[in-house]
Every structure is written in C-alpha cells, then in structure tokens.
C-alpha cells in the first residue's frame, strides 16, 4: 500500500531521486558524534515551534491577562505544565547546544574557506536565539519577567548616541506596558521564528553548496573513509535527538518552569535575577563602575560579536588542526573559562534582603483587611470598591481613638453610615487600626 503510494508520487515528482540525493550525501571522513549538534538544534527548533504554537492557544499578550493566562496554562490546562516546561527547558538546551555547536566548528576549523558564509549565518542564528530568549522572558509577566525586561531594555538604552531612541522603540514607549508586551509577543512569535527558519535554511543550504568540512586532518577525509548521510549519521543524530528529547521532557516534569508572583513595578524588595544562561552578562554588568559601565553593557558585547563575525576573515590560514592553531585555541579556551567563571560568579552574587520597615502589626492588619473583605466597599491606592470612603490617606485624617470607636460602632461616630459593626477581637482591632494609621 505504502509502496504503491510512493510509486504514484515518484512517477510525478521523482521523490525517490530526491531522497537518494539526501541519503547519499557524502560525509567526508565518515559519520561522527561531533556532527549531531546541528541536526539536534534543528530538532529543538521544531520542538520550540510546536510547543510555542500550542502555548499561544491560551496565552494572552496583555499585562491585564498575561499572568493569569500563563497561570492557567501551568496549573489548569491538561499537560499545560509539560508543554510550558518543555518550551522552557527547550530554550535552555538550545543555548547549550548552540554554544557546543559553535565550539565544535571553532575547534575543527570548519569555518575556513569555503565555508565563511556558513559561519556568518551561524553567528546571525546565535543573535536570533538570544533575541528569542530575551523576548520570551517577558511574556509570563511575572516578577522575574518584568524586572529582567526592565534591566535588559535599559542595557540597550546605554548604547552611545542612539540608546534613548532604541530604548523607546524596544519598549514601545518610555515605560514597560501594553505596547511593550504586545511588541515582544509579536517579535517572539512572528518576526524571530520566520527569521530563524529563513537563516537556518540558508545555513544548511549554503553549507551544502560550499561542501561540508569533515575532519580537520585532510588525510582522514580520504574518499575511502567517506560515508553517506544515511544510515550511519542519521542514526547517530536520532539517538542524540532521543536523548535530548527525554532530557527536556524529564526536566519539564521534575523541575517545572517557574512562575513568580505577578509583575509589580512598585516592589523595592524583589531581588531580580536572570535566567542562568544570562548570568555571565549579569555578572559583567556588576563589574564595571561609573563611566566604565558602558564597557560591560555595550563595548564588550559588541567586540565579542565583531570577533565572531571577523573570525573567518582574520584567520585565513588553511591549517585546521587545533594543535597547530595554538594561539586561537588558547583564546577560545580563555573565553570559555571566562564565560563559565562569570556564570558561576553571577549565580553567587549576594542578594540584598529588604529590611522590614513595616511593623508586624501593620502587616497583620493588612491581612485582616484583605480577609474581612473590606476592599468590597473601600479602596486603597485605587484598588477596591467605591461604596465606602477611599482609605488611601485615612491615617492622616483620623486618629487612633476615632478609628477604634468607628470600628466598634460606625453609626455612633459617623451618623448615617451603612458600614456594619466590626466584630473582631481586641487584638485584631488593634492591628487593623495600626494598618489604617499607616495609610498616609
């Protein structure tokens, strides 16, 4: 049945010729575990696309609803935690594998002539993946999301000359809000996926045109060692893909994607920390002080990007063996060690515990206020009902004695009031009064 169908298609569009061209595509020096990284990245991209599309079934990109919709995905929707967890961990794996893939190409000297364009497209892809990480961050609109985006966009704002303009364009205004979330969503779900698909397609296509590099030792790329792509390489690819898939799914179940409290722009007690793969940037931002700050936010990242772009044009010797490229290998080694060290330092950066300026009884009173449903009639800082008076500054208007008498019998102090008597124990009444007094 299947063979007949394929025969039918083959008769019309020669699909077997196409497949045999793919399957017999020669791999100089034979199949290798080192070559599984690129195909696994392609696999993760597809995984991210699918999980992302399905997350979009329930996600709402506005500050009013984003948090609640993510909470729904995480806690209520069937398999929601798994789908979101896989999208979350898929992003981490993407970061790790893209770094390993680049490192492999660097060590093998595969970026050299005639594959310079393949390398350049790869550098572009790294940029896009960072863009994904940065824009995806904000979408849940929790504390981590909000503060990471405040910091990240401010980093862009330090770019000399155009920083202010860039900041506003990124945020869709001077502050984070509706327009920030909607444009981050559009970039994350439309602009970047299409750009990545296009660039990744070109990356593979140009590599096919230029020809794969194979091993660094020309002797090991002799025709007798050449193997076709299928089955050996595709088998290795599949085994590694399976391993990565299982790892992502297991992590999604064992260590679900976090969701912190909803974003609160007024919170001065929160300790913002980025996702682990940005720790090295985070640490870099801690190092340079005062007017040197721009070194960490702009100069070093720009130099790093430029070095990556220029690498195949600066290092033009045909020699590919790492043992004969000592200077470059040492520089690469120092960079890797540096990034790992910065990552560890960033992870260990001390937090600043917020001192309790608010007394415990005020906090307790605040809880009582919430628990007893006072906000059904009263509002504080624009939150709550409008039936009773606004209490935002009640502490400045009423003294302690008045408040206590009023709680016990509202009509006695304020004739005509429709507020019910507060039947609370003395201590609770005291805490509630403390809270009222703190509102000034």
């Amino acid at each position, binding site marked *: 049945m299947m063979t007949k169908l394929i025969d039918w298609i083959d008769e019309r569009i020669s699909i077997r010729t196409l497949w045999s061209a793919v399957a017999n595509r020669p791999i100089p020096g034979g199949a290798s575990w080192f070559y599984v990284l690129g195909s696994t990245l392609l696999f993760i991209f597809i995984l991210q696309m699918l999980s992302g599309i399905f997350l979009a079934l329930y996600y709402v990109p506005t*500050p009013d609803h984003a948090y609640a919709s993510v909470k729904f995905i995480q806690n209520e929707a069937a398999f929601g935690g798994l789908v979101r967890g896989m999208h979350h961990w898929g992003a981490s794996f993407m970061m790790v594998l893209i770094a390993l893939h680049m490192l492999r190409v660097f060590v093998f000297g595969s970026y050299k002539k005639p594959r310079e364009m393949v390398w350049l497209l790869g550098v572009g892809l790294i940029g896009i993946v960072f863009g994904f990480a940065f824009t995806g961050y904000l979408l849940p609109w929790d504390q981590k999301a909000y*503060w990471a985006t*405040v*910091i990240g966009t*401010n*980093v862009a*704002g*330090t770019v000399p000359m155009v*920083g*202010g*303009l860039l*900041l*506003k*364009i990124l*945020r*869709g*205004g*001077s*502050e984070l*809000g*509706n*327009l920030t979330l*909607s*444009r981050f969503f559009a970039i994350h779900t439309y602009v970047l996926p299409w750009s990545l698909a296009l660039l990744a397609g070109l990356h593979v296509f140009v590599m096919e045109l230029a020809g794969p590099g194979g091993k660094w030792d020309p002797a090991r790329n002799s025709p007798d060692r050449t193997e076709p792509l299928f089955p050996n390489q595709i088998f290795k690819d599949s085994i590694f893909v399976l391993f990565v898939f299982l790892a992502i799914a297991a992590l999604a179940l064992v260590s679900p994607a976090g969701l912190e409290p909803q974003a*609160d*722009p*007024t*919170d*001065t*007690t*929160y*300790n*913002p920390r980025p996702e682990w793969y940005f720790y090295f940037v*985070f640490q870099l*931002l*801690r*190092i*340079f*002080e*005062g*007017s040197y*700050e721009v070194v*960490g*936010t702009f100069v070093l990242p720009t130099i790093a990007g430029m070095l990556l772009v220029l690498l195949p044009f600066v290092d033009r010797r045909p020699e590919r063996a790492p043992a004969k490229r000592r200077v470059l290998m040492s520089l690469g080694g120092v960079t890797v060690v540096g990034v790992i060290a910065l990552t560890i330092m960033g992870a260990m*950066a*001390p*937090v*600043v515990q*917020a*001192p309790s*300026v608010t007394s415990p009884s005020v906090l307790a009173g605040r809880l009582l206020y919430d628990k007893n449903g006072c906000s059904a009639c009263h509002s504080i*800082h*624009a939150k709550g009902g409008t039936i009773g008076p606004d209490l*935002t*500054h009640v*502490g*400045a208007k009423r003294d302690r004695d008045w408040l206590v008498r009023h709680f016990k019998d509202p009509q006695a102090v304020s004739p005509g009031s429709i507020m019910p008597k507060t039947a609370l124990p003395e201590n609770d009444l005291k805490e509630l009064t403390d809270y009222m007094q703190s509102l*000034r």
Partner: protein
Amino acid sequence: MSNHDVSRRSFMVRTIIAIFAFIGAAFAAALGGFGIMPALKKREPGWSDAGSVADLTEGLPQERRFAEIVKSGWQSEKQERTIWIVRKADNTLTAYASSCPHLGCGYRWVEAEQRFACPCHGSIFDINGKVLAGPAPRPLDTLPVRVENGRLLVQYEVYQLGIAQKLPA
C-alpha cells in the same frame, strides 16, 4: 542583437528594479512609521499626592506608594508608583525615583548601614543619593516635589537609565 534591443532590454531591467524599489520603500516607510512612531510619544507627568509630610523623620527614608493615571497604548490605567522620601536636617524634602539609575532595579534602604543598596548589580548610595560604590553612573534621580496643605506632591518623571546624564525617557 541591435542597439534598439539593448536599450529596450535595459529599459525593462531598470523599470523592474524601480518598481520593486518603489514598493519596498513605500511599504518600509509605512511599516517603520507604524512600528516606531507610537513608541516615541512624549509622556506628560502630572502631580500626584504621595501622602502626608507629618510623619517623616529626619534621616529615615520612607517608601511611599501612590497611583497615577497613565496612558498605555489603547488603555488609560492606574499605574502604581513607588518613591523614597528623605527629610533633611534643614527640613527640606527630597524624593527619589525608585529605579536604580544603573539599570532600573528597585533599590532599598538598609537602616543598619545607613545607605541605599541595589540588589542587582550592587550599587550603593548614601542618603543624599550619592554613589558610594557599584556600577551606577549617576546619583539617585530626584523628582520634582512640592508641599501643599501638609501633603507631599510629586511629579513622577521617568528617566533614561544607565547613562551619566539625567534625561527624561
């Protein structure tokens, strides 16, 4: 091929290029403007009531919250704000924006050390907003304040962060 053919051919090549250059430029201008212009709208901060000035103690910064109406795209919404208020010995009041001038984290007053500390990249400020340590490129941002009938009024301005100059964002 005659000269006539060549010029006819080059005419068509140029026309094709011109057509798509025109379409590209016109569309790019429209889309670019659509994407960027709303982002460049200027903010106009009003005066907000940040509470009573009666209970401000000299040398003890107080955190105050208030709400102001902010237009965010299609929505006018209540945006909560935080500021720090400091009463100085000469009885003047200073209000600081709650964003660290480095990259915008919410910093806090550490009473035991008598200084403001930012939890992100480790900037430290004294009570006058001066940078004592860390990456912050300028002192804490002061906000315009005035006192009316015992109430502190604040104009909540948003500044561009991470640079040495204090410019409105």
